[in-house]
């Protein structure tokens, strides 16, 4: 791929999804976009770039953006963010929300494992949450993965990565080769396509936000912009979870890490840590 084509694609992806593509990622463009080119009846990646340059094919632009975003996900991925949710966040919210309303946002929901893991943790203690209005919103830029998330059907491999067998027995049904998550869990999560570069105002405010393994693909100003807007969308005593390789340090001072709780961040001007007994 020549430099001009690379620059063109990098600029397009940055504009459309915030994804920052460095020249060492040329191989990713080639491995992910060549199959897409073929599917579109184009012989080569060069032909695909030509088509993008000359036509205003928004469908093609969308396909390219979706192909370039990473959608790997497991149930209870990395464990810690879910242990913290169960042991600290939920008990704190139970005390701090007399109106019994709880809103959770999975900002990179991918194929649904993260929001469903949270739904399962709530369901494990369901008697406690009777009478509560709990909303889990799962968003992703990629509409294709959201279709899979909505269907809630997973392969044998997918249900074995991170999901304890007891939970498979309790919350899934086997349908031939796939394992489908039960209807009552599925109904706890609502999905919608959403680009993190666009305004969060229509989403409302949240008590808990999971935004893991997304910021790593953004450049510094985009990270700052997204984090500060998340801070605004987050309740003062709310919590934000980022991926293991991500941080707010050196990017924004509106949020700060919670000592000893990997991946967990709270509002600098809030009281989340006291509420959770972590101070």
């Amino acid at each position, binding site marked *: 791929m020549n430099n001009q084509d690379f620059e063109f694609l990098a600029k397009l992806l940055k504009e459309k999804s915030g994804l920052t593509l460095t020249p060492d990622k040329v191989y990713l463009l080639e491995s992910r976009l060549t199959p897409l080119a073929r599917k579109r009846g184009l012989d080569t990646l060069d032909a695909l770039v030509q088509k993008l340059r000359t036509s205003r094919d928004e469908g093609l632009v969308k396909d390219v953006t979706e192909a370039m975003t990473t959608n790997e996900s497991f149930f209870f991925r990395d464990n810690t963010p879910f242990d913290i949710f169960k042991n600290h966040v939920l008990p704190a919210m139970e005390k701090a929300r007399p109106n019994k309303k709880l809103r959770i946002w999975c900002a990179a929901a991918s194929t649904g494992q993260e929001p469903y893991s949270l739904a399962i943790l709530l369901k494990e203690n369901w008697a406690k949450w009777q009478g509560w209005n709990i909303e889990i919103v799962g968003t992703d830029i990629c509409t294709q993965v959201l279709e899979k998330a909505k269907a809630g059907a997973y392969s044998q491999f997918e249900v*074995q*990565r991170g999901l304890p*067998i007891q939970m*498979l*027995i309790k919350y899934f049904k*086997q349908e031939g080769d796939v394992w489908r998550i039960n209807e009552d869990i599925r109904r706890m999560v609502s999905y919608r396509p959403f680009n993190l570069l666009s305004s969060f105002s229509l989403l409302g405010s949240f008590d808990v936000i999971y935004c893991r393994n997304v910021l790593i693909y953004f450049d510094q100003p985009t990270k700052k912009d997204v984090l500060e807007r998340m801070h605004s969308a987050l309740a003062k005593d709310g919590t934000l979870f980022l991926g293991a390789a991500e941080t707010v340090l050196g990017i924004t001072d509106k949020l700060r890490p919670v000592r000893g709780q990997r991946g967990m961040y709270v509002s600098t001007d809030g009281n989340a840590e006291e509420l959770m007994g972590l101070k």
Partner: protein
Amino acid sequence: MKLCLVVDDSKVIRKVARRILEELNFDIEEAVDGQDALDACARNLPDVVLLDWNMPVMDGLEFLKAIRAKEGIEQPVVVFCTTENDMSHIRMAIEAGANEYIMKPFDREIIEAKFTQVGLI
């Protein structure tokens, strides 16, 4: 180091499991069927048993019932690893005292995830 007893009548499976588990810092013993596994447990009780279901002489479920009757429910941890992948087999295994259940084919990630869940890693 923790000791894992790998029970499978297939030499290939035992070899693959051994390689993965040695990388995860387990000492490995092998047994070729349930009876062989019971004998191995009598000599040296492992921390964990990775257990196939369908084997000649004594199958995995019979072994599990025998070892739970003899040693109780704490030790060893038992992780089934079998091609039986339907809910009724899974329930049967858990009711008989299995701690986790792997449906073949497996890979390193699945073994690592399951062993982490039962607190061995």
